């Protein structure tokens, strides 16, 4: 079974190892997740587990969401995602998965939505250096400069980095080390940063990076 769970980012801090090394960690509140549906090859064309995390008020759920949750005797969920599986799994619909599933997993991928930065210029969005502060530069200090050659090819090449919407996109932080699993508080501690704001919803799965 490919292990995965849904959760929420709590925040970042640091903890110490026995030898005094400080480890930067992100605290994730992971699970418990209800298995809302099991996707199978025969019916759906692929294997996956559909998980739900965090209850939604019944009155703010649609009729369809309520019906889908009722099928497995659960409340409608705020965050529903699928975890792809390689083959048929032994997990049944309606079952609850907790953070303990990560007990033997050394590394995970964390998928989330990055913080939205709106319509951003090239300095923020692509790390351009901008133009000089003096020596004749006039009101162009954070501009991209040239976007390509002139008469030949007479147009801007495709793929040139430009200003535009930055952030608020699906981001996968891959191969993060699992530092600690805390089943009493449903916490998963991973080394390093994960996408999104504190309190943002996340999908955590066993890494597919080898």
């Amino acid at each position, binding site marked *: 079974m490919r292990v995965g769970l849904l959760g929420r980012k*709590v*925040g970042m*801090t*640091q*903890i*110490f190892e026995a030898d005094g090394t400080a480890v930067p960690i992100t*605290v994730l*509140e992971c699970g418990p997740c209800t298995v809302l549906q099991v996707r199978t090859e025969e019916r759906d064309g692929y294997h996956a587990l559909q998980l739900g995390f965090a209850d939604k008020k019944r009155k703010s759920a649609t009729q369809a969401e309520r019906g889908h949750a009722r099928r497995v005797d659960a409340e409608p969920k705020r965050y529903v995602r699928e975890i792809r599986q390689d083959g048929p799994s032994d997990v049944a619909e309606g079952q609850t998965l907790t953070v303990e599933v990560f007990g033997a997993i050394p590394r995970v991928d964390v998928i989330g939505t990055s913080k939205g930065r709106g319509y951003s210029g090239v300095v923020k969005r692509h790390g351009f250096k901008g133009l000089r502060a003096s020596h004749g530069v006039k009101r162009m200090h954070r501009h991209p400069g040239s976007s390509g050659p002139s008469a030949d090819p007479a147009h801007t090449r495709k793929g040139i980095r430009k200003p535009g919407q930055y952030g608020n996109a699906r981001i996968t932080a891959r191969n993060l080390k699992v530092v600690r699993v805390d089943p009493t*508080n449903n*916490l998963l501690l991973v080394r390093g940063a994960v996408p999104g704001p504190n309190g943002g919803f996340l999908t955590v799965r066993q890494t597919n990076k080898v």
Partner: protein
Amino acid sequence: MQNHLMEAVEQSSMKASVPKFEIGDTVDVHVRILEGEKERIQIFNGVVIAKSGTKTREMFTVRRIVQGEGVERKFPVHSPRIADIVVKRSGKVRRAKLYYLRNLSGKAVRLKERFPAGKATPAEAKAAKAERRAQKAAAKKARAEAAAEAKAEAAATVKEE
């Protein structure tokens, strides 16, 4: 938002009790050092000139003068490598960061002593001063004796020749 969860994690990495010390205190920081297989404790003595951060991220900066050169080390309060922090002397200071000490040298670096349990009675202050004087005198005497001994030895060797 989910502060109680954060609390639980940070609590797990914090020491149960940390010795109380203030900005301006002269402290001995006991640092665990690994030398090959063996562990020993090294003491770094100096004045606490700054504290920063909270919880597991709390740090403090200690400044001392080594051979006329200022040396500063910054330690994490909750690091397991810090075995102990012993307050040797409390300094009377009026700000939270003593970065101005970096621009001072010699006698100007000294801080006035503070007596943590309220104001020092004149008698106490006098006693402390007397003790410091006695220490200084003792050190001077020891130095003088050592010098005299060295001189005598030198004279003896000359005589032998």
